[in-house]
């Protein structure tokens, strides 16, 4: 296993009395797909918000490539090489698909270098070349989801946080997105995935983290995690054999 690119130690986020994320620690190894799973409200999206600096921590620390990033502004974390593709696509509706992706390239990790190449790469890997000149407002849900990924790829991140990239996609589209995620790992990227589609998670992940009610209850290889009794009780429940 290679060195961890991201280390979260005891990260906590309270909203009043409620601890949305409570004392969660994990490490993400470089060039892997790590999945974060758990029932609705388990704190998965909150963890993404904490990692990107969108919501401040109330406890703990986060290091990216050995550097503390908690407390940094969102755009600074992005510039260090952490990109996020949203669960609900947040396109720049008034811009063309190409310009959407170009924003990612212009403000990505290395700043404005090889913008055209990075833009084309994002469009190609997400299979959006055919609709590149269309306004983002005209895309289908599946295309928008792919555009989110394209925008994030164009930013040339080291770590891609993908928030339910498969939600609402048909099986063919899902397989395409999964293949492109594995392809990104092949090119040196690390992926942290939040996903509800369990078969997809088992297929694509090198490691799985399981959250329940804001706490980490399991952390291991997919096949081990599915056999963990606490996971079966908390999450897989009725689906378990």
């Amino acid at each position, binding site marked *: 296993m290679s060195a961890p690119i991201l280390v979260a130690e005891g990260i906590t986020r309270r909203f009043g009395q409620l601890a949305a994320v409570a004392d969660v620690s994990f490490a993400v190894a470089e060039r892997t797909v790590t999945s974060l799973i758990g029932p609705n409200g388990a704190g998965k999206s909150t963890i993404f918000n904490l990692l*990107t600096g*969108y919501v401040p921590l109330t406890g703990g620390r986060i290091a990216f490539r050995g550097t503390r990033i908690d407390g940094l*502004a*969102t*755009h600074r974390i*992005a*510039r260090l090489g952490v*990109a*996020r593709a*949203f669960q609900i696509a*947040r*396109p*720049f*509706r*008034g*811009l*063309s698909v190409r*310009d959407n992706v*170009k*924003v*990612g390239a*212009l*403000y*990505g*990790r290395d700043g*404005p270098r090889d913008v055209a190449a990075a833009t084309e790469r994002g469009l190609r890997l997400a299979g959006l070349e055919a609709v590149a*000149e*269309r*306004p*983002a*407002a*005209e895309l289908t849900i599946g295309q928008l989801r792919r555009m989110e990924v394209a*925008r*994030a790829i164009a*930013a040339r991140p080291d770590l891609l946080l993908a928030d339910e990239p498969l939600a609402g996609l048909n099986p063919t589209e899902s397989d395409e997105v999964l293949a492109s995620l594995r392809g990104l790992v092949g090119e040196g990227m690390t992926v942290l995935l939040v996903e509800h589609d369990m078969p997809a998670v088992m297929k694509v992940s090198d490691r799985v983290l399981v959250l329940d009610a804001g706490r980490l209850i399991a952390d291991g290889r997919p096949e081990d995690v599915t056999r963990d009794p606490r996971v079966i009780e908390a999450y897989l429940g009725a689906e378990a054999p």
Partner: protein
Amino acid sequence: MSARALMSVALGAAAVGGLAWLGTVLSPFHLRVGLSIFLSAGMAIGWYILGGFARYYSFGHTVFVGVGAFAAALTLQTWRFDGWVLQVATGVGAAMAASAVLAAVIALPILRLRGHYFTIAMLAVALVCAEAASAFPVFRGSIGLTLPDVAPPSVRPERFFYWMSLGAVTLAVAVAALIARARLGYGLFAIREDEDAAQMLGVPTTRCKVLAFLASGTITGLMGALYALNLGYITTDSVFRGALSLDMIVNSLVGGMGSLFGPLVGAVVMTLLTKVMLGDFLEYHLAITGLIVVAIVFLAPDGLLGLAEKAWRRVRGGNAGGGADPR
């Protein structure tokens, strides 16, 4: 530079050349109309750099007209130079510097605000600065300030200011067009569409807004200096006018917020309509402006250019081109 960009620059240069030549043949009345249009267009372009690109609507942009006008008047009264080049350079330079300083000072606190809060805060800034210009004797805003006649004796004043303001509006459009094509422009468009998503893609949103605000304020201040030099005599009421802020917004809305042509078209249409065709009904000017705004909001929410584009698409049959141009 791409072929399309070269074409735009060539067409722009031809248009400016044509307008400059018109300055040699137009009657004094038509020169004054042209001058009004240029001043109005320049201010609208200045406003548009923040209001159009990032959709941060400033309701108090007249503050930069006022500060620019006062800075020009006060410096030209303090230092009396000979020769129009030095006089204009001093007045305009002081106006741009003062506007830039004001923009820099208020940018950080005010651009932390979003949407309506920013709009209202700018309104307050304009009111405070106007009060200050009147209340502090050093500014002489309530008595008024006289500006020297900077036009060289060999050129009619209206012709001189026609050319000066044409030059200024050309500069304003060039700066705005460069911003729109630069990295900053894409940052501003991203802010306009979704500020949070922009941040997460690495766009330094505060820095982008501050830079746009600086450019916007400085250009508006430049137009303010020319406005004042052309008037020859200014008071607080004549340059810190809410109506000027309103005109910048209305020109952009009437023309269309889709591209830089919007504020230009709006300035031409609104100036011709309110100052020329309705010149005999000056007391109804604001009422008519209001009615036009209401009509535009209901009938052509994307402005005249949006309306024209829709008509063009219908003629061409369906979705012709269909590309979204962020400019």
